[in-house]
């Protein structure tokens, strides 16, 4: 399938869902990137990004074998419905980890900035902080540097448990993500430090 055919296929799947996004795909302003998710058996997933609008937009489109599309935005409700309806088979820890991260990337727990951290250095404090905020930065980094690590996964009962640290807006959180073998996701959140002077998201 050529790139133009691929683009038209995606536009056709989007058309019944959103005319504007379909037009963006057809006119080339939407960049299309296939998402490798072999554990989703019923759908092919595509990441769509448009940087030509005033504020970059990112969304995902799942295309079923019958070419029907499902638009996945930052709405948790839509994502939950999709994961329940789609045929998903998580076979090991690596797939559980990738699926948990993809799930949260598509539909983060809150609107606003969501970033999964590899270490405390990723918290992303703002430059130009005043003395009070700079002291807070140092305190948070000292406290959490030993604790924050890259996302980790282990088998848990019949499924898996993914543990990760993330910035949810300006809050530092620890997320425990239960991943079922059928792709079901259950989220446990622990607020570690609220309203940090981290970068703004727009």
């Amino acid at each position, binding site marked *: 399938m050529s790139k133009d055919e691929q683009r038209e296929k995606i536009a056709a799947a989007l058309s019944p869902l959103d005319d504007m996004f379909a037009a963006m795909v057809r006119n080339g302003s939407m960049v299309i990137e296939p998402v490798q998710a072999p554990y989703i058996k019923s759908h092919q997933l595509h990441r769509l990004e448009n940087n030509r609008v005033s504020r970059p937009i990112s969304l995902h489109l799942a295309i079923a074998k019958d070419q029907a599309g499902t638009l996945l935005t930052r709405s948790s409700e839509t994502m939950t419905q999709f994961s329940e309806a789609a045929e998903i088979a998580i076979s090991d820890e690596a797939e559980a980890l990738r699926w948990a991260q993809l799930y949260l990337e598509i539909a983060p727990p809150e609107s606003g900035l969501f970033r999964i951290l590899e270490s405390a250095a990723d918290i992303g404090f703002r430059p130009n902080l005043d003395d009070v905020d700079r002291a807070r930065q140092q305190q948070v980094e000292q406290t959490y540097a030993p604790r924050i690590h890259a996302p980790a996964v282990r088998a848990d009962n019949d499924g898996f448990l993914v543990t990760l640290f993330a910035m949810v807006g300006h809050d530092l959180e620890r997320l425990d993500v239960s991943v079922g073998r059928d792709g079901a996701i259950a989220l446990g959140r622990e607020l570690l430090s609220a309203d940090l002077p981290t970068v*703004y998201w727009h």
Partner: protein
Amino acid sequence: MRRLRAPLTGSKRRLTPLRNGWKREPKDLQDWGEEKWAEIEEAAAGASDWLEEQAEDFGEWLDEKTSDIADWAQETYDDVTETVDDLIEGGKTALDKLGQAIDDMVEGVKDAFLGEGGPVSEDDTKRFEKIQAILETIPGGQDALATMKKYRIGVTYKAGVGSFYDPETNTMVLDTAENPETSALTFVHEINHGKYHNEGLDPDATTVTRDEYIKARVEEEAEGAVLSIEAKMELEGTTVDVSKATFPQEQEYRQAYNDAIAAAKAKDPAASKEDLNKIGRAAGKKRVVKGFYDGEVVTSTKPPTPYPEFYGKDWDNQNGVVTK
């Protein structure tokens, strides 16, 4: 006009002929000659007077005719001028009517193909009513609404993709997740992008340098941010509760705004409120621009990217520059 008279016609001054031929004495002949000479002189004097009189009459006649011609020429000129003026005035009226008809036609075509701006569906209209009511209470909101109408910017709602302005369709998308107060302030921000696009103020990456492109885009983004913050400050003086609406760099703007005003007051206690506001606004915007350049604000892309870097990559892409 006097008629010309024939010279000497009817004159009594005729030469008297020699009655007795040449047989008269020389003395008589001399007398006769002198008499005739006197008659000739008298006749010549009469002719001279007549000629002088005729010349005078002719001069008067010529003056009279010249004056008549001048009067006629002036009158004719006035008539022609008036006629031309009438023609011009008539032409102007006709052109005005034609221009109005063309304007009406263009507006009609725009209405048909571009829409009238504002909400694009009944659902959008219902959602937008609350936002419009908020915006109408403040000058910044009224300006934003006027810009929407002027440039026929459409407004629609979508869930979960954030709020943005799409120059391709001249449409603003507002996120349904935002409450009306936040959405009103977002509207003020995004409408500024629509204004920049419709007024041709957004830079063309293929005709400006990379640095010029980044600077222009950052300025545009900062201007939108400032307008939202200022709209919020205006709403704080009303019954609209905007305490839950926060915008990037709002605190930094307020700090710079207040510091600049305090400094200006200390320097000139008699400074007017308007002047102080201008000083505060300039300082606030400068601070916001600095924040964008320093990476205080990141994009909603994956990964989140500081705006100058994001715009730089955008320039690279549009100019075929390959970056790692």
